[in-house]
């Protein structure tokens, strides 16, 4: 369990982290979401005792990281943004070093082998780390965090540099680990947090802008009265027809692909579903609806809305992953 109360970190005048509080319960995966430079890594570095906080408390299983660092650190497995690997060692030597460093008591060989199976690095076990690909390095970094089977796992962008298959594997692994560990995972990849985490903390410019489960976040910010539609028909007439539908508040053309297709974003009044009426009117005039979708807010929209301040229309999406 991790409790953070009113945590601040100032670098000179810059407030990297500004009075944030959150809690991650046992068996919970907490996603830490924010743009680059939001204070994610700083917070994680404070939680793991790498740097100190200017103000506030961080408790790991009830132990204050500043007051009793050695005891608190024993409970943490940390994968920093850049995995802390000694490039001149083999994976075996490195993990064995970490095992000694953490004063681990579990049976050495079986424990290390288990971890290697878990993160799938058995086949590079005897290779020198500097010759491994980025994905493997990342996984060795994750393996390092798992040595000693700590209660709390703090993972700073754990899937960076992995290929899509590996990303899915690691996410599944994190989900599995989350059942009996407390996991904090940072990311700026929204779909990742959406896929893995039970709870999401959104942070921007050192401040928490949202702290809730994913559904609640969506519920609070969603607006169901927005649809976008792509129509095959003369665009100026189409616009007039749409505007004449009862309940439509705003119609705006978002793009005109070719001569025939035009796309509109329509905002209707609260609680009015204009889709049936829209379909009728369009078909009456022998135009065609090529596409019709409600624009429910994805985490991306929530994220942008929270961090930029207001909703941005027609956000170009590119599939989510990286």
């Amino acid at each position, binding site marked *: 369990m991790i409790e953070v109360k009113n945590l601040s970190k100032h670098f000179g005048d810059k407030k990297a982290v500004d009075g944030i509080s959150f809690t991650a319960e046992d068996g919970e995966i907490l996603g830490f979401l924010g743009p680059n430079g939001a204070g994610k890594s700083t917070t994680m*570095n404070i939680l793991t005792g790498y740097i100190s906080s200017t103000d506030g408390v961080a408790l790991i299983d009830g132990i204050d990281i500043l007051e009793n660092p050695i005891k608190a650190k*024993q409970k943490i497995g940390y994968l920093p943004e850049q995995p802390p690997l000694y490039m001149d060692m083999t994976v075996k*030597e490195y993990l064995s070093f970490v095992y000694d460093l953490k004063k681990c008591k579990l049976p050495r060989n079986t424990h290390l082998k288990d971890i290697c199976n878990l993160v799938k690095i058995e086949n590079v076990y005897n290779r020198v780390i500097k010759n491994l690909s980025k994905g493997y390095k990342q996984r060795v970094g994750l393996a390092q965090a798992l040595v000693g089977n700590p209660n709390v796992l703090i993972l700073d962008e754990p899937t960076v540099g992995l290929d899509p298959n590996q990303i899915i594997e690691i996410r599944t692994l994190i989900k599995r680990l989350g059942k009996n560990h407390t996991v904090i995972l940072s990311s700026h990849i929204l779909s990742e947090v959406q896929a893995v985490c039970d709870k999401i903390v959104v942070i921007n410019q050192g401040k928490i802008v949202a702290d809730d489960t994913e559904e609640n976040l969506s519920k609070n910010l969603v607006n169901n009265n927005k649809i976008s539609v792509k129509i095959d028909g003369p665009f100026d007439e189409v616009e007039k027809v749409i505007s004449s539908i009862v309940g439509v508040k705003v119609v705006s053309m978002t793009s005109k692909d070719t001569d025939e297709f035009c796309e509109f974003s329509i905002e209707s009044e609260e609680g009015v579903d204009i889709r049936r009426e829209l379909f009728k009117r369009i078909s009456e005039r022998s135009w065609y609806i090529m596409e019709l979708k409600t624009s429910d807010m994805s985490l991306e929209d929530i994220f942008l809305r929270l961090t930029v301040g207001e909703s941005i229309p027609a956000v170009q999406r590119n599939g989510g992953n990286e």
Partner: protein
Amino acid sequence: MKAIFRREFVSYFTTPIGYIFLAIFFALAGIDYSVTSIAKGSSGSSGGAQGYGTAELTQFFLWLLIIIVILIPILTMRTLSEDKRQKTDQILLTSPVNLSGIVAGKFFASFLVYMMGLAITLVFSVVVSAFSKPDWLTVFGNIVGLLLLGAACISIGIFASSLTENQVVSAVISLASIGLMSLLSVISSFIPIEIIQTILNKLCFLERYIGFTYGQFDLSSALYFISVAVAFMFFTVRVLEKRRWA
């Protein structure tokens, strides 16, 4: 501490640094030995018959000081700076180990490699003993002196390494500081104020070490070197601590 010590020591020999240090050390010590001992008779400044060499190793050990001053920065330059640059300090500082354990582990690893270098002086002494009778007390006194001097220099080197992420900068800082500490007595001779001269001479590594080369074991000098070693290890811990609180 043990884990860090073992890793550091092994890393000296998985990277070229350990080999380079030992090779240059052996080479320079060998040259030093040839010039000051084997060829001593012919170059002859302090006696010994023409062409016969000398078993008197005082000169040899005196020159060794200069070699050590130059080589120790190579030995220590990467100890902490490389960790900082490669971000491997994150695993050290977030593990359940205290800072003094980290610094001590690094110190003893460097010290062990240094001792491996020093072992060559024993070989030279044994070679001398085949032809003549070296003064074994002088030899052992010297080795103790060198160990103490080395501990102080390594400690300064590690401190320099904690100040920067750059190995070269670290090496230059430690070379400059160790060099300065060794030559304080030279500087002091330019300062006409007696009290400052005395203080500088007391702090000077060369002055402190020179007694050992004659085979005198001076307790105050021994304590001085140990204090320097401990003090700079303490400063290193403070640097690491301060970085955390920055």
